[in-house]
């Protein structure tokens, strides 16, 4: 990045504050739709931090995969599971929350003191800069070839597994015995809900 030092510090501060504030909103807000939209803001500011770290390709991949796919998937999940239920209060829930907050604060103190105490050996090699995407491609097709191919197999498995898990299972109660040969994923027929009647259930 050909930015001055002060510009980098200022944009790092703005993006960091934006990221942490939206992450706190994701965790603490009570309406889950607000949480999902704030999650998109967290992902976008992390993408900006990647641009500050000279990684344009991964910043673009972050926007495409996280904001474009994962966040939309989560929004669809919220839409499909839109049950507005009031959770039954658990007795002494505040003890768990306070204990969790204490553990997280302790972990953060530990990690940040470790980060500040370590003397990092910063490299002085010339950065890859604009040629980073070529370097990443060469890594993918030489020394990281096996994980790359395994990742494609894993994505296929996740695709098939998500379809199998989320479909409505077929219960063969009145199935004729001679129609077993058709290779289809049979689903239980959906209960037809008249339009406009979903306000009573939700």
């Amino acid at each position: 990045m050909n930015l001055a030092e002060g510009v980098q510090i200022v944009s790092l501060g703005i993006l960091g504050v934006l990221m942490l504030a939206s992450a706190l909103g994701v965790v603490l807000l009570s309406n889950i739709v607000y949480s999902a939209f704030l999650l998109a803001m967290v992902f976008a500011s992390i993408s900006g931090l990647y641009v500050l770290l000279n990684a344009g390709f991964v910043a673009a991949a972050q926007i495409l995969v996280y904001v474009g796919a994962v966040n939309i998937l989560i929004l669809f999940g919220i839409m499909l599971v839109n049950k507005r239920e009031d959770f039954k209060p658990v007795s002494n829930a505040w003890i768990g929350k306070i204990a969790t907050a204490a553990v997280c604060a302790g972990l953060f103190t530990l990690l940040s003191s470790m980060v500040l105490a370590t003397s990092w050996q910063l490299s002085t090699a010339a950065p890859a800069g604009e040629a980073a995407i070529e370097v990443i491609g060469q890594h993918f097709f030489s020394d990281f070839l096996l994980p790359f191919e395994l990742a494609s197999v894993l994505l296929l498995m996740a695709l098939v597994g998500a379809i199998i898990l989320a479909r409505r299972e077929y219960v063969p109660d009145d199935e004729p015995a001679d129609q077993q040969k058709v290779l289809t994923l049979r689903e239980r027929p959906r209960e037809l809900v008249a339009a406009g009647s979903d306000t009573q259930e939700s």
Partner: protein
Amino acid sequence: MQLEYFLILAAALFCIGIYGLVSSRNVIRVLMSIELMLNAVNLNLMAFSNYLDPAEIKGQVFAVFVITIAAAEAAVGLAIVLSIYRNRDTVDMEQFNLLKW
């Protein structure tokens, strides 16, 4: 000096993710917290790759792998949430006692 800033930001994001993972009761919010933690790890990897290994950027390669795994995890996790919701008719973590006895 900037490396420490990025690492501290990533540590804070990771701790927020852990807090949300443990303390929230909605299943979808738990999935969002897992995404936050994965992003914190990615931020660490990218910071190390820029400041400690800028010529051969292996950290970025690992970050791309982590993004791939996170996408697969989100898809399967949401499918599991939908399946449990269809069986149990709730999204409350406290009522999922399927592996408890």
